[in-house]
């Protein structure tokens, strides 16, 4: 192509003064690198400031939080955490944490089981009507949840399941979140067919091929899905707000809202301490699994 020839001519033309050119280019590269890093660090400060501010503020007395942009507390203490951990209206903080944990863990189990089975059907079984169902499944990705919540609520209310965890979990066990099915289908399509076809020729049925060949290979997708399912359940607010009435069944986000309603508006100290506690598992997940999360988002986007 003309590209190759023109680059070589350009290189040949620059030959007469190689030393100074090279030095200048190196200096230019250095300046460029410095500018890029300064810009990146500026973005980094903006991106992380609110989170760091939250951590620091949780250690400050309330009258120091508001209006103090500095990140160093003049007097650090755990008073805010003591208030936050004391619980709300007779319900212990650990009860809320337990509820959040139970919901998140069951969400992960349900999501991984149901989504992987569904994805296997779409990716590997050649059954009649597959394309139609797959298109409908993708269609639900674009459907706003608003058209579903009212009838769903009515049904769960008639069944006497309001104020239980069932409405919050049943969808996870029925692969209702198309995002996860789609993620796993995309992953399975990249698994070489020879692997499972060999197993099929050796007499394995689909159930065994799925269980002993596909599931182990699916590990990275399962990890990514598990982390997202956990975090989404952990942060979910609307679901618990609609379905849970008794404070002893509240997960942390609802407890936080209750806490904000009950403490005086200006007691930001305890509110922020409780916010930190509520976000702690998400932050830990992020630190440990950031690669899986970020790569999951990247591949998901490109193949969409």
């Amino acid at each position: 192509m003309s590209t190759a020839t023109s680059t070589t001519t350009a290189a040949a033309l620059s030959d007469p003064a190689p030393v100074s050119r090279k030095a200048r280019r190196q200096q230019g590269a250095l300046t460029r690198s410095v500018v890029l890093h300064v810009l990146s660090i500026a973005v980094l400060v903006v991106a992380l400031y609110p989170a760091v501010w939250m951590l620091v503020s949780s250690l400050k007395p309330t009258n120091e939080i508001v209006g103090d942009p500095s990140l160093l507390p003049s007097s650090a203490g755990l008073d805010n955490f003591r208030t936050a951990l004391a619980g709300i209206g007779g319900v212990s903080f650990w009860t809320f944490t337990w509820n959040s944990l139970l919901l998140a863990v069951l969400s992960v189990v349900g999501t991984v089981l149901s989504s992987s089975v569904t994805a296997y059907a779409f990716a590997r079984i050649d059954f009649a009507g597959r394309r139609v169902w797959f298109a409908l499944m993708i269609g639900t990705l674009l459907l706003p949840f608003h058209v579903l919540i009212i009838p769903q609520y009515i049904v769960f209310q008639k069944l006497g399941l309001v104020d239980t965890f069932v409405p919050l979990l049943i969808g996870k066990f029925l692969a209702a979140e198309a995002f996860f099915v789609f993620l796993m289908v995309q992953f399975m399509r990249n698994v070489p067919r020879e692997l499972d076809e060999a197993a099929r020729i050796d007499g394995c049925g689909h159930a065994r091929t799925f269980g002993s060949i596909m599931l182990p290979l699916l590990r990275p997708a399962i990890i990514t899905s598990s982390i997202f399912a956990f975090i989404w359940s952990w942060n979910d607010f609307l679901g618990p707000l609609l379905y849970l009435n008794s404070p002893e069944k509240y997960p942390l986000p609802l407890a936080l809202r209750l806490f904000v309603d009950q403490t005086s508006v200006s007691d930001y100290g305890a509110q922020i301490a409780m916010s930190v506690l509520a976000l702690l598992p998400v932050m830990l997940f992020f630190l440990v699994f950031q690669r899986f999360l970020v790569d999951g988002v990247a591949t998901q986007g490109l193949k969409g």
Partner: protein
Amino acid sequence: MSTVELRGPSAPATPAAPGLKRARRAENRIGYAFLAPWLIGFFVLTAGPMLASLYLAFTDYNLFRAPEWVGLENFTRLLDDPRYLQSVKVTLVYVLIGTPVKLAAALAVALLLNSGMRGQGFYRSAFYAPSLIGASVSIAIVWKAMFSDAGIVDVVLTGLGGQPGGWVGDPDKTMPMMILLATWQFGAPMVIFLAGLKQVPKELHEAAAVDGAGALRRFWNITVPMLSPVIFFNLLLETINAFQVFASAYVISGGQGGPAGSTLFYTLYLYLRGFQDSRMGYASAMAWVLALVIGLITAVMFRTSNAWVHYSGESK
């Protein structure tokens, strides 16, 4: 099931032998066995409720009395409901300004990280972090504290010579505050942009540079067209997401959309009407209007995408 469906790429064109037919039937059975959980979910949790809310949209229903058919009344009443019109306005401003601002920030940072610097992986992860926590109640509380009266934003801006006063209580400033919260979560679309930028062939840039094209021209004539499928994907995804913002609006506005209705987002008003006032027919009508608007936007974006989204032939 129809036999036409059966003729997949692997199915023989000639009439199948009895053994093959049996194998197909077995494949169908096991296929639907695997699909059963999703199918149940689809009918019970998605398709059924969709139809039910379509019906409820034409009724007056409060959970305790049987639904009463009222025809188009819910829809005509929407047009006379100032709070509803306010929620439409708030949501449209948020979507139409917030989404482009967020995507512009995401693209700018992705370009920065893609310029071959060291530590790209670290920055990428760190910038992604706000996307993970930004929609939580915790961050909404933090945001509210930062933008409150005499909060740090107030103090810093007053120090720079601005008008004193928090943003939380000022109806003119709550929307910028919400858009900043959305923009702060630029990380997720940025990661997707970055993955897209890596697919842009370097040779194209080199060739254009040799031909004398400056950085800006190369951006418009190479990067943007090559990246357009990813821009399209992000735009669609972020627009749909922006219509559905709830937890942050609920917490920051104290659950009522205040001050002066300036944070009365569509989803929040739907929640208030449906679940606090038990006007479930009315809320269903709201839900369907939203679904139709989102459907329309999606359709328009797909239709017009032929004109500006460039799919290169050779890449898969």
